[in-house]
């Protein structure tokens, strides 16, 4: 969530989930909330029942979009001009919060100058959203006393994902919808502990609590506790590891120093002694509970890279596609068989408790890591997860007051929680932004990395369904969830289907520059003509064989949401009637 970090200084959801219920206007962007975040959708419905207005920005007519007072069906990848257009109308109508801008933000004049020059006719051409609609949305959002923006991967999984987030943050600051309860900018985290994994420093450039590895003082603190100093230069990102190289960037060559996560520390940087040659590859991977052979973009590229590895170790609860390729597999305990904490999307750190024993010889990942570490000559003698959390609290200021004994019996604590007396923080940026002043950032339209052409005339959009979760490694093992949602479906607009003589339920083949996958066709008005939509939960239709690794330059988030494809009947040419 690099965009929020550059604007506000912190990349987490600014509100609590329940605050959404009290908002006057809710703007949902690139989130199929009903299916991906059911409880957030429930709060949005409750707010609507109370009379709140809902604006949805999504190329697809999703369930939440059908409920919206205003659905802006923009062209995929045109979020930036759309939000810039909204801001221009808000400025023109004098709906900006001048006092907030004056007291709490910086760089406003750069944005204002840019917006003055912005041509709304051009915005219409880029987004396909009619000027009247844009105006209605701007007035709705601009006049609200308390407005919340919720966004999800539909915003971040683009080559311009970071800038997409920045413009949303700009919009909130322009109208003063940040510092208060029931108003803010809320990235909805997809998986249950994404927030926690980021907080804990499972990031190549960050130690726990977002302390950069390039900061010598931070490294010293960890060295004092660990007896070993962490390396001073940022490591490789997920895609660099699973693809064996840094991903292509949508806008020119990847330069390490552009990425905030990879910023070299002061004079050190590239001249650091021992800094590796970026061309040398990964030879061994240790993977805990992930399934990159189904979840990563350009799967054929991942599979090829995995074959080149000297060694692959996987710890998981099922034999996933990735575990099946491993040299050694550790059977892991699932959430019901261990103690520990999950941090949800509203930064709430919550305790989970062991209810039953793991099956057979399975062990918790905590035990597995400690045992490996012991073998490699670095003993980790923790008696319990609670003891690990005590070490975390000592080294991670935002978790400074989070201990298992405080979490037990309550509903968790929302970070930042600085010390044992601190009650936790339901909403962020009260009185001041984490970075001091909120910074306006000017962003211009950036076309998707891959556009359609005569050979690949359709755009593919990917996402999740209500019944399944991520790569389905867990949910696909439920008979009921599978009965409700068994087949990998591809949504096609009826007009596109007619042009290719495809009927509903028919087998179709989807082809991109990187691979091809078979689906069952579902004719649906939910997708506009020119676009198809599929889910990534299904091993039998690994949609990520099609997607691109083109990534946002700063967040390294791949552009899952858009790639160019061609659609055929699965029978090929023979199946087509003359």
């Amino acid at each position, binding site marked *: 969530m690099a965009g929020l970090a550059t604007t506000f200084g912190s990349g987490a959801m600014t509100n609590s989930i329940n605050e959404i219920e009290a908002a006057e206007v809710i703007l949902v962007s690139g989130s199929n909330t009903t299916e991906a975040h059911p409880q957030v959708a429930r709060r949005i419905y409750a707010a609507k029942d109370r009379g709140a207005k809902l604006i949805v920005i999504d190329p697809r007519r999703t369930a939440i979009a059908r409920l919206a007072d205003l659905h802006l069906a923009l062209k995929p990848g045109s979020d930036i001009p759309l939000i810039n257009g909204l801001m221009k109308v808000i400025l023109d109508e004098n709906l900006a919060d001048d006092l907030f801008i004056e007291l709490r933000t910086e760089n406003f004049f750069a944005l204002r100058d840019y917006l003055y020059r912005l041509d709304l006719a051009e915005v219409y051409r880029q987004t396909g959203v009619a000027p009247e609609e844009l105006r209605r949305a701007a007035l709705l959002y601009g006049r609200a006393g308390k407005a919340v923006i919720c966004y999800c991967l539909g915003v971040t999984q683009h080559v311009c994902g970071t800038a997409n987030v920045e413009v949303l943050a700009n919009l909130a600051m322009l109208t003063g919808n940040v510092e208060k309860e029931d108003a803010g900018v809320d990235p909805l985290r997809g998986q249950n502990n994404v927030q926690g994994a980021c907080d804990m420093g499972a990031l190549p450039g960050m130690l726990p609590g977002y302390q950069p590895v390039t900061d010598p003082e931070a490294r010293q603190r*960890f060295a004092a506790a660990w007896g070993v100093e962490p390396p001073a230069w940022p490591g490789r990102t997920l895609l660099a590891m699973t693809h064996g190289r840094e991903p292509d960037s949508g806008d020119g060559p990847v330069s390490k120093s552009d990425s905030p996560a990879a910023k070299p520390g002061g004079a050190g940087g590239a001249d650091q002694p021992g800094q590796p040659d970026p061309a040398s590859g*990964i030879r061994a991977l240790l993977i805990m509970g992930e399934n990159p052979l189904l979840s990563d973009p350009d799967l054929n590229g991942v599979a090829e890279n995995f074959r080149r590895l000297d060694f692959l170790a996987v710890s998981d609860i099922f034999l996933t596609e990735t575990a099946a390729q491993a*040299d050694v597999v550790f059977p892991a305990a699932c959430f019901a068989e261990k103690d520990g904490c999950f941090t949800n999307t509203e930064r709430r750190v919550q305790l989970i408790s062991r209810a039953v024993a793991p099956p057979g010889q399975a062990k918790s990942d*905590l035990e597995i*890591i400690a045992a*490996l570490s012991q073998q490699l000559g*670095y003993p980790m003698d923790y008696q319990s997860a609670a003891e690990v959390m005590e070490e975390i609290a000592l080294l991670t200021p935002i978790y400074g007051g989070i201990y298992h004994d405080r979490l037990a019996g309550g509903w968790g604590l929302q970070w930042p929680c600085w010390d044992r007396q601190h009650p936790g923080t339901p909403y962020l940026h009260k009185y001041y932004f984490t970075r001091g002043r909120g910074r306006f950032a000017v962003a211009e339209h950036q076309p998707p990395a891959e556009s359609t052409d005569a050979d690949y005339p359709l755009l593919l959009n990917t996402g999740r369904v209500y019944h399944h979760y991520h790569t389905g490694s867990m949910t696909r093992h439920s008979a009921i969830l599978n009965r409700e949602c068994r087949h990998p479906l591809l949504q096609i607009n009826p007009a596109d289907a007619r042009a290719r003589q495809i009927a509903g339920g028919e087998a179709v083949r989807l082809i991109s520059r990187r691979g091809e996958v078979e689906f069952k066709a579902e004719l649906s008005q939910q997708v506009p003509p020119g676009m198809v939509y599929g889910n990534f939960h299904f091993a039998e239709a690994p949609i990520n064989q099609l997607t691109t690794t083109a990534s946002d330059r700063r967040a390294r988030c791949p552009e899952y949401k858009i790639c160019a494809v061609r659609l055929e009947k699965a029978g090929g040419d023979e199946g087509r009637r003359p």
Partner: protein
Amino acid sequence: MNAVPRDRVRENVFTICPYCGCGCGLYLRCEGDQVVGVLPSRHHPVSRGNLCVKGWQLPEVIQHPARLTSPLRRKNGRLEPVSWDEALAYCAAELGRIGAEHGPEALGVLASAKCTCEENYLLQKFARAVLKTNNIDHCARL
């Protein structure tokens, strides 16, 4: 079969749904070492008496017969059950060997948004303090 230690036998165990970022609070209904049902927490600030279909179906996934129950090691191209000692020693030896031959930057670690904070913390500590690399990431962006 591991028995649940006596002191851990409880009727309803409060925990958090492992699926989406909402983080619903729920009770696992246990009989012995079986999870037999789920109840949403009525007063939990997120679930407020409600779960989505994924949360309700948790017991079946926890007790699924396809769960991995033994460490596996590839021998002659096939994954075969081995002891923990063998699996751990083999993994540690390989990580150690490759790290020594090609430098720590040839090693990579993927953490998980499905594991706990403590496990993610320990894994990044393992990467940084033991393997001596910052090559650690997880799929936040996916």
